[in-house]
């Protein structure tokens, strides 16, 4: 078990280093850092001086090393566009994205599992068919379109919900600004959370349904029925539990992509999160921000993958070969 953990940790570090390499390459080779930082009047001599000062003439390996060591303490330099330290920019906007991601992930999971189980148990019913058809449309609808249409219906026509922004936020300890404690904050969260979570919900629902149908066909379910166990025990005690094991792990992996998809949702709803920051950095080729965002996302994914692998281990007893007993 410890060997397993160590191996995964090493893998994760390797991935992070690779991503760091890409991010660093971005930094150094895309555009001219000096040109982006200084005005037109700076002389060549001054630029050369700056270049020397920033260590841009050092060998590649040295520069990479500096980059990584700086990254480890969270120093990603200054944004070309906003002239502020990148880390500060990211940290100030991270809570908004995280809140959105977690709420929509929760929504996607709860409804995804719910619908998935229902459509698996009640195959062929009209409600099941309707849900399946709607899910197909859900997969074909681009996220941004869902957001825009939701705004049209609920914010413009019905005027029930706000169409952009986070509403009022409350500052918690440590600088975390949350929208969950105010009514306008919660109202503002609804449409973006649905938009972000809808695609995930559809995926989870289809996964749960397929998995559950497979499980319901197994011998152990047949045997459970042959023992006279109640429908509830069979469907939820046995079938659901076996279904959820692979589903939970896959859903965990989805959490990472939710954070990435937040880019789109934040743009649609003008949500002041990390995704919107990234989009602007792509538009204006603000390399430090791009590089930092890349590293951040990679970290999130790597950590989530690690946790999910460990979770699998905990949940599925077959993977735990610690007991030496093997009778005959």
């Amino acid at each position: 078990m410890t060997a397993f953990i160590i191996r995964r940790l090493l893998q994760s570090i390797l991935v992070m280093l690779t991503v760091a390499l890409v991010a660093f390459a971005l930094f150094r080779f895309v555009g001219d850092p000096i040109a982006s930082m200084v005005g037109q009047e700076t002389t060549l001599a001054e630029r050369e001086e700056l270049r020397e000062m920033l260590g841009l003439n050092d060998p590649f390996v040295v520069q990479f090393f500096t980059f990584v060591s700086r990254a480890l303490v969270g120093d990603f330099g200054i944004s070309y566009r906003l002239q502020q330290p990148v880390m500060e920019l990211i940290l100030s906007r991270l809570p908004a994205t995280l809140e959105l991601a977690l709420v929509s992930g929760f929504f996607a999971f709860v409804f995804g599992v719910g619908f998935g189980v229902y459509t698996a148990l009640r195959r062929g019913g009209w409600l099941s068919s309707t849900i399946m058809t709607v899910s197909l449309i859900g997969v074909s609808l681009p996220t941004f379109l869902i957001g825009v249409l939701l705004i049209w219906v609920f914010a413009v026509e019905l005027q029930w919900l706000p169409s952009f922004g986070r509403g009022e936020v409350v500052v918690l300890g440590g600088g975390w600004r949350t929208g969950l404690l105010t009514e306008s904050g919660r109202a503002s969260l609804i449409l973006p959370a649905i938009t972000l979570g809808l695609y995930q919900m559809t995926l989870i629902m289809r996964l749960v349904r397929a998995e559950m149908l497979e499980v319901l066909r197994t011998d152990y379910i047949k045997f459970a029925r042959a023992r006279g166990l109640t429908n509830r025990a069979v469907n939820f005690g046995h079938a659901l539990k076996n279904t959820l094991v692979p589903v939970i792990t896959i859903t965990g992996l989805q959490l990472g992509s939710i954070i990435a998809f937040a880019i789109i949702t934040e743009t649609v709803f003008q949500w002041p999160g990390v995704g919107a920051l990234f989009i602007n950095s792509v538009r204006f080729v603000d390399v430090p921000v791009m590089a930092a965002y890349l590293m951040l996302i990679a970290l999130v994914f790597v950590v989530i993958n690690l946790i999910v692998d460990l979770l699998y281990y905990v949940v599925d007893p077959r993977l735990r070969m610690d007991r030496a007993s093997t009778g005959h």
Partner: protein
Amino acid sequence: MNATPLLSVRDLVVEFPTRRGTLRAIDKVSFDIAEGEVLGMVGESGAGKSLIGAAIIGLLEPPGRIAGGEIRLRGERIDTLAAEPMRRIRGKRIGMVFQDPLTSLNPLYTVAEQLIETIRTHISCSEREARERAVALLDRVGIPAAARRINDYPHHFSGGMRQRVVIALALAAEPDLVIADEPTTALDVSVQAQIIDVLKEICAERGASVMLITHDMGVIAETADRVAVLYAGRLAEIGPVRDVIQNAEHPYTRGLMGSIPTLTQTETRLVQIPGSMPRLDAIPPGCAFNPRCPQVMDRCRSDRPGLVQRGGRREVSCWLYEAAEKEARHG
């Protein structure tokens, strides 16, 4: 034999509606199982043995369905029961053991959890009582150190041990009838005899009857009291094991017996029945066996024979004996 039989099946018909028409998988099969009796049900793959078991316990997979006949448990009809009453019969009055112990057990629950759940579904008792019963049960089926091993997961057991656990589970609620569908086919040969013994002993102890479904005639010879021979969804012959084996009457049964090699055999080739069992959608009219029968008569090709009583709880479905019986009665 005047007591009400434990299980009584009369003219059972099982059909499968398909796009190309309805297929009859079981065509008017009738038999009884007495209390405490072991009935072997023998036949080739595809003859329909498992289907009969599934039909009795009410677990036929749709679109298959019971299209005719009656199934009675201690005189009461069970084939027409609603879902909930049928569920209560499953496990409590009829138990079932499946073929593959590897896939019969839920890998995510310990043996204890699965046993206790089954026990408490049918018998109201406390968790502790249920656990005691479970341990005793495991011990009875021959799992060493039962009290400790009951907390293990299924994958910690070997194939033979797992099947013992399955037997324990099937008998946990003390059913009167146990249907065993190929219980040893997936096991090592060395272990098969043990499992059959365990099954037989524990059922005999509790006075439970057994319907032993298998294609292995050797197992039947060792274990069963009576044997029913199934062919293409119809009963060819049924009777006490010794009689049927030593003195098979239906030509198909004779062919079956002849094809089993024995130590004292001196022939160099095994007897083979030419041809093969017909598919469900290609069953010939009259007696299903007529294309392959060495003693076929004209009548066999047009009329299907009924079950002829042969005395001593023996029945054969063959025109050869109808004629003989008629003579005996009128001659």
